[in-house]
């Protein structure tokens, strides 16, 4: 571990030899396309499929009404009430892009052509597009069977008895909160917006479903980060047992939380069964913007109470999350994660939030890199910046003043989480030193003296990783792994954590290589197929290495114990003295042929034992489930330097310096890659990425021409460092790192831009900070 090992995934991928979903082709395969609603809200009056049915190559055209009785509703994991959500709308449409009819044809072009021949008449209703207006009295209702547009209202934190929060406001005790604000020497209050954004994996979604009626068996290839959950829901949808279904997640072109389980997969499976042929669907990019889950879209009203010395004494948040028209798998769950990180890295004694999740006529939100955490850290880090400005303190010093101290871990935050370990001040100091912070401030002062709008922004982030145990995560907080030492001594491992770019095949092999004392090249890791990895939760929530890696270690321990027993038998020694090193098993100080055995020799014996050790079964294959006792909390600090062009409002992101601590690092190359990508995805929503709907609920940013994810020339070279504070909660000491950059980068960049414009009297600007918005602010300020 710790080696910058090149990835074994790459030789195939750099030659274009990976098999992605659109590369899956089966004999007799048919192609599916969806007719989607052009209106955000309305009642379906009539759908005429006649002309489409007679188009060349068309095999079937069905509407939502036809499918209603054939399919269950789209799955949701939530303990709270949620509206019915059909894969294809049977009567009402509630967002632009909602499917209303399906065509299956012999090739993709024929299916697309036939869509144009379907006539759809929808009686339009007013669209709900503003989450705060949706809360006003007598609003238009998104769901007539809900009393209002509130999907969930929940109170959490100080004064709330239930750890998971309560919906009953009458049980909430406000005394501590009110006292903290009454005694505050300074109070910061700010409304802040986290814009709605699109995860935008470069590969869109897709599915190939093959139902074999003679075997009563469904095989389904899908772009899913969670093959086992996918199999469970797809099997149930077809009235099958889980033993009659297999989900294969092929090579996947990114996921970022948005690729889990969608209605299109259910339709593909059902129609494959109906037509007796494999059915394929590949989402196009226009569809992806409309119908792959969106993210964020949270308005926060944040109040911070503090002393004049900078000590924060309380934080209160009212959070309004626009969750869109329906709930997908984790739609309701994601915004609830925001509360738990409202303490950031600080010892804030009183924290209370009220979360209101609101239905609107937009695409549902769900997990996307960070999943509730970027929202929390944005609110906290903007507030710290506002406090520093109010107190005329340096932003770095305000943060230092409030850090949780190393000796306080494990630390129970007022927001409800227990942080595992950390040395926050050490990391802050390292970041300031790397950035040469004082020098940067001096440069800023001299640039300002020349009339230039230069800003420095700082953020200190906390990430919540390795979500678990099962009481914390709706679908199980464990992960599964298996380890087999083959007859030739090589190792095959499987994990339920299905990778799609994270490099598991390399890093997990490194973990096992250290455990067994062999080279990583002697190990193969298989994943992404429910017939290969028997169980799994999946690659989500930055949990793969911590939870999946530890599950593999547990399985590895069991295999090693058996190997030691076989080796002891062969060497006529006690199993307790057997060691593993340099690819051999045996006695300390032994030599090949005298006291030490190759893996192949031990394995060969284990699979064909001449004499079984007492109580030991033949073979060397074991599996394990590992469930963490608590979550891990990596952290880091970012400093962004920007210059805003006074004439155009354009932001030039000049430097980005940061230090991350993700605990033990298995492969620095892979960790850097994760951090880089995360930072880019955090910079996007700060400067260029925003999904915009108009008043009729039409998406205005439905292509990469209007929705600007960062390009190479938009970004500087990230200057990064690391500290390592191992987690005490798993044997690796790992914490996770998948979402870190995304969480920390947005507030650093926004803080920098606000800092640049602070001379003009600007104290807060909501992202996205496009040139037009900033230009207007600058011109307004200059006019006085």
């Amino acid at each position, binding site marked *: 571990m710790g080696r910058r090992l*090149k*990835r074994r*995934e*790459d*030789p*195939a*991928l*750099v*030659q*274009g*030899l*990976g*098999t*992605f979903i*659109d*590369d899956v082709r089966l004999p007799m395969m048919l192609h599916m396309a969806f007719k989607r609603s052009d209106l955000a809200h309305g009642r379906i009056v009539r759908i005429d499929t006649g002309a489409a049915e007679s188009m*060349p190559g068309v095999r079937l055209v069905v509407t939502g009404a036809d499918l209603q009785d054939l399919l269950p509703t789209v799955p949701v994991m939530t303990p709270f009430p949620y509206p019915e959500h059909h894969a294809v709308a049977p009567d009402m449409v509630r967002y632009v892009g909602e499917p209303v009819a399906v065509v299956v044809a012999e090739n993709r*072009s024929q299916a697309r*052509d036939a869509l144009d021949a379907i006539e759809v008449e929808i009686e339009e209703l007013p669209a709900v597009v503003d989450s705060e207006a949706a809360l006003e009295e007598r609003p238009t209702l998104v769901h007539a069977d809900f009393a209002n547009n509130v999907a969930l209202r929940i109170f959490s934190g100080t004064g709330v008895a239930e750890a998971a929060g309560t919906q009953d406001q009458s049980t909430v005790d406000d005394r501590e909160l009110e006292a903290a604000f009454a005694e505050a020497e300074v109070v910061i209050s700010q409304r802040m917006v986290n814009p709605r954004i699109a995860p*935008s*994996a*470069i*590969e*869109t979604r897709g599915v190939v479903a093959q139902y074999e009626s003679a075997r009563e068996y469904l095989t389904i290839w899908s772009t899913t980060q969670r093959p086992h959950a996918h199999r469970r829901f797809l099997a149930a949808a077809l009235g099958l047992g889980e033993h009659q279904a297999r989900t294969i997640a092929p*090579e*996947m*072109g*990114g996921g*970022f939380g948005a690729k889990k389980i969608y209605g299109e997969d259910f339709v593909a499976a059902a129609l494959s069964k109906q037509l007796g042929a494999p059915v394929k669907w590949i989402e*196009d*990019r*226009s569809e992806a913007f409309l119908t792959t889950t969106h993210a964020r879209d949270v308005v926060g009203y944040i109040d911070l109470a503090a002393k004049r010395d900078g000590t924060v004494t309380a934080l209160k948040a009212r959070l309004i999350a626009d969750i869109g028209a329906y709930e997908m798998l984790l739609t309701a769950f994601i915004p609830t994660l925001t509360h738990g990180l409202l303490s950031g890295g600080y010892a804030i004694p009183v924290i209370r939030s009220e979360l209101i999740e609101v239905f609107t006529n937009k695409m549902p939100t769900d997990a996307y890199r960070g999943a509730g955490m970027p929202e929390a850290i944005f609110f906290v880090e903007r507030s710290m910046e506002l406090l520093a400005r109010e107190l005329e303190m340096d932003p770095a010093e305000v943060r230092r003043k409030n850090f949780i101290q190393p000796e306080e871990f494990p630390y129970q935050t007022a927001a409800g989480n227990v942080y595992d370990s950390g040395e926050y001040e050490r990391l802050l100091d390292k970041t300031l030193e790397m950035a040469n912070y004082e020098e940067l401030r001096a440069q800023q002062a001299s640039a300002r003296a020349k009339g230039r709008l230069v800003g420095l922004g700082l953020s200190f982030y906390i990430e919540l990783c390795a979500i678990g145990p099962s009481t914390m995560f709706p679908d199980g907080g464990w992960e599964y792994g298996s380890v087999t030492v083959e007859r030739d001594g090589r190792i095959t491992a499987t994990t339920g954590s299905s990778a*799609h*770019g*994270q*490099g598991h095949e390399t890093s997990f092999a490194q973990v096992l290589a250290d455990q067994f004392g062999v080279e990583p090249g002697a190990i193969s890791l298989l994943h992404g197929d429910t017939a290969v990895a028997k169980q799994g939760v999946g690659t989500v929530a930055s949990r793969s290495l911590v939870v999946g890696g530890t599950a593999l270690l547990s399985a590895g321990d069991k295999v090693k114990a058996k190997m030691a027993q076989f080796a002891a038998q062969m060497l006529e020694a006690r199993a307790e003295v057997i060691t593993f090193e340099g690819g051999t098993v045996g006695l300390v100080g032994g030599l090949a042929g005298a006291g030490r055995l190759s893996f192949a020799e031990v394995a060969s014996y284990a699979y064909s034992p001449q004499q079984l050790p007492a109580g030991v079964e033949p073979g060397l294959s074991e599996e394990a489930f590992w469930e963490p006792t608590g979550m891990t909390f990596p952290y880091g600090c970012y400093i962004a330097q920007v210059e805003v062009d006074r004439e155009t409002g354009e932001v030039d992101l000049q430097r980005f310096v940061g230090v991350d601590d993700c605990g033990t690092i298995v492969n620095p*190359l*892979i960790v*850097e*890659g994760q951090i*880089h*990508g*995360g*930072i*880019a*995805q955090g910079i996007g929503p700060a400067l260029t990425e925003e999904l915009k709907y108009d008043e009729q609920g039409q998406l205005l940013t439905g*292509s*990469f*021409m209007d929705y600007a*994810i*960062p*390009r*190479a*020339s938009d*970004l500087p*070279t*990230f200057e990064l460092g690391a500290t390592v504070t191992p987690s005490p909660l798993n044997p690796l000491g790992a914490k996770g790192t998948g979402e870190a*950059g995304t969480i920390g980068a947005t507030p650093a960049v926004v803080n920098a831009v606000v800092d640049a414009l602070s001379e003009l009297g600007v104290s807060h600007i909501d992202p996205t900070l496009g040139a037009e918005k900033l230009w207007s602010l600058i011109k307004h300020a200059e006019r006085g």
Partner: protein
Amino acid sequence: MSETVVVQVTVNGEARSVEVEARTLLVHFLREELGLTGTHVGCDTSQCGACTVLIDGQSAKSCTVFAVQAAGAAVTTIEGMARGGSLHAIQEGFWEEHGLQCGYCTPGMIMSAADLLQRNPSPSEAEIRSGLDGNLCRCTGYQHIVNAIAFAAKQMAAEGEGGNGS
């Protein structure tokens, strides 16, 4: 709609001739008719560059070119970059410098890099970044891609003749 044409084109050095609908895009011709699935589709507005190939040595987005427009031309796809079992220097660079994560944008990135390095064999960091403006990557934040192309440029310079792919 279903008017067909015979497209004759040289792909990765091999002469191919296929009858397709006239509206067939080059990317679909490569992927579906020739089975060269290394060329990917990531958007429908020519923004992402996942479908980038070389047509007569120049990079082009194959989702924006009809197959008939490439008739008579020499097309190089990602599958044509490695020669005789050894990776092209740019492919080596992406592997060496961790220039990919999910690998979906990678073929297009590599083809764009090939075009860039032909025009500018020793680009600066800023030139590499601007040379990639036609290609989107969502995983890497581009830093390792920039390193990968710089690595390839050095390697190709050392090889003395622009690498084995030209």
